[in-house]
């Protein structure tokens, strides 16, 4: 098993006005593993994702990908080196069909470089990817405009967008939110398959039960700070985590 650290976040902090959204957070993600991030609402999870993927610049700290410092790179470049993300609220291209939605990432520099210009027919590749994530190929579904899809399908489309970029790391920002249990259950094999193909996955989630089935390690954030990082079994037993979620009255210390 590959034990290389593929992503290292060092002492990253970010404040918005007077609010410290992310406070000196450290984490290390091993290649090929699934890394979970949980925490109550407002704990800074999405801000952290935005910082890693370049949408927000941190006040201090650095991000290292495969040993290289990527702090401060613009988001499209970070996607270009192989770190892709889904958005909490799906951002499909509503006026385009599902298939054409995927043409966009397939048109990216990364794909052009990876396949050395021989992209083949982007439409066909798009259909292949859609089939992988559960869009029936022979039906009308890939041709329907994105505006006609339900939340579940839109989330899959988000994932498809990531897959299309042949990433090394996929950051899934609350992929499971808004989905029914059966929809989540049908997504889990897809995520496992991605991991088996060597892709590192970072999952921000509120659905702890499902996440703990998948994750190799889990980090807990509260008020922008890391309060724990361990295997799922240990996290469940962790007192600090319980307090953060449930809010037991604190002692004078």
């Amino acid at each position, binding site marked *: 098993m590959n034990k290389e650290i593929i992503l290292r976040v060092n002492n990253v902090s970010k404040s918005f006005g007077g609010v410290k959204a992310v406070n000196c957070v450290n984490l290390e993600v091993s290649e090929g593993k699934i890394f979970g991030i949980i925490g109550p609402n407002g704990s800074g999870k999405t801000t952290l994702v935005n910082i890693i993927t370049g949408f927000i610049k941190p006040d201090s700290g650095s991000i290292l990908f495969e040993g290289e410092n990527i702090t401060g790179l613009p*988001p*499209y470049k970070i996607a270009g080196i192989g770190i892709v993300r889904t958005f909490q609220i799906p951002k*499909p*291209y509503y*006026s385009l069909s599902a298939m054409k939605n995927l*043409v966009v990432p*397939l048109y990216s520099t990364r794909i052009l470089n990876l396949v050395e210009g021989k992209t083949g027919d982007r439409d066909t590749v798009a259909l292949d990817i859609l089939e992988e994530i559960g869009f029936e190929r022979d039906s009308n579904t890939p041709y329907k405009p994105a505006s006609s899809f339900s939340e579940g399908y839109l989330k899959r489309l988000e994932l498809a967008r990531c897959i299309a970029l042949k990433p090394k790391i996929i950051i899934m920002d609350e992929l499971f939110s808004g989905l029914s249990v059966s929809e989540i259950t049908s997504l889990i094999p897809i995520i496992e398959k991605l991991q088996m193909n060597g892709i590192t996955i970072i999952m921000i989630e509120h659905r702890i039960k499902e996440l703990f089935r998948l994750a190799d390690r889990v980090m807990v954030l509260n008020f922008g700070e890391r309060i724990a990082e361990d295997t799922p079994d240990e996290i469940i037993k962790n007192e600090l985590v319980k307090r953060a979620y449930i809010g037991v009255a604190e002692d004078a210390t």
Partner: protein
Amino acid sequence: MTEITRRKERIDRKIKVLTEDIYAISSLRTIVYILLPRFVFIIGMLILPLMISSMAWQKILIISCIFSLLAISYDFLANFVGIVCLGGALFIGVGGYISGLLNSVLKLPLYFSIPIATIFGGIICTLFLIPCLPIRGIYFAIVSLMYPLLFSRVIQALEIFGGTDGLPGLDTFPNIWFELYIIVPITLIVTFSLRRLVNEDFGIVLRAIRDNEQAVIASNINVNRYKTSSVFIASIIGCFAGAYLAHLYGWVGLSLFALDFSIFPIAATVIGGGGTLVGPVIGSIILAPLSEMLRAFGPLRVVFYSLILAGLVIYKTEGLVPFLERKYHKTERWVDV
């Protein structure tokens, strides 16, 4: 009970479903169904010059083609890339002045000055507009609107490029048929090329930028580069129109930067139907004659069409081409039962 022997049936029955994607070439009937409106449009535009008797009206047709180029570029940027460009006058003015200067100062014949003005003007306009691309769209709209107003005042103030009087005595085209049969095919070519472009992969990316810029960024695409390219495309179309106009009338002046050229394309697009690239052409063909007929009323003409524009924009009308499209698809005919 009377027997029903006939019923109404939509003409696109059994065809509509096939018209999407590759099934369109599966039968002659589908091909005709799809091509017919396009055919009518193209042939119509090509023989229209021959059908008009008076020279005045032929000039109006030329003007409407020039305006339609501006309108197409507005529609392209606004509805396919998501960039609202209110600087039609910028393109006309820059294209016109460059061509005029090349022609009168450097004595280049118009067959050279127009293409050079098109490319060069396109580059210049794009350069002026690039800084506005990374920030909120409203800045682009405001700045693009302001530039022509400022440019004309600067030219006037500094008395350069002919100042208030302009540059007269430019080359004109040999005859009216030349004028007509260069601009009309070019209008058609631009219309159909852009329609093709927006369905090519490059165009898909542009449309994606309009729908959701952030997702495009997250897909490893340098959005600013694509926006710049699309602004360049729009600029060269607009600058060509300006250069053509300069040689149509044989002079350039401050009026090339008039607000008229910024508003007209928007009005034409709204009337004809935005998002279709054909709508602006139809809209211009309707609006240009109307505008000429009202010229007798002086400033009231501008009042008239600003109010119309305000009304159309506020009441969010659909536009003529989408309306016609709907009617075409829903046309019914009698069929024996």
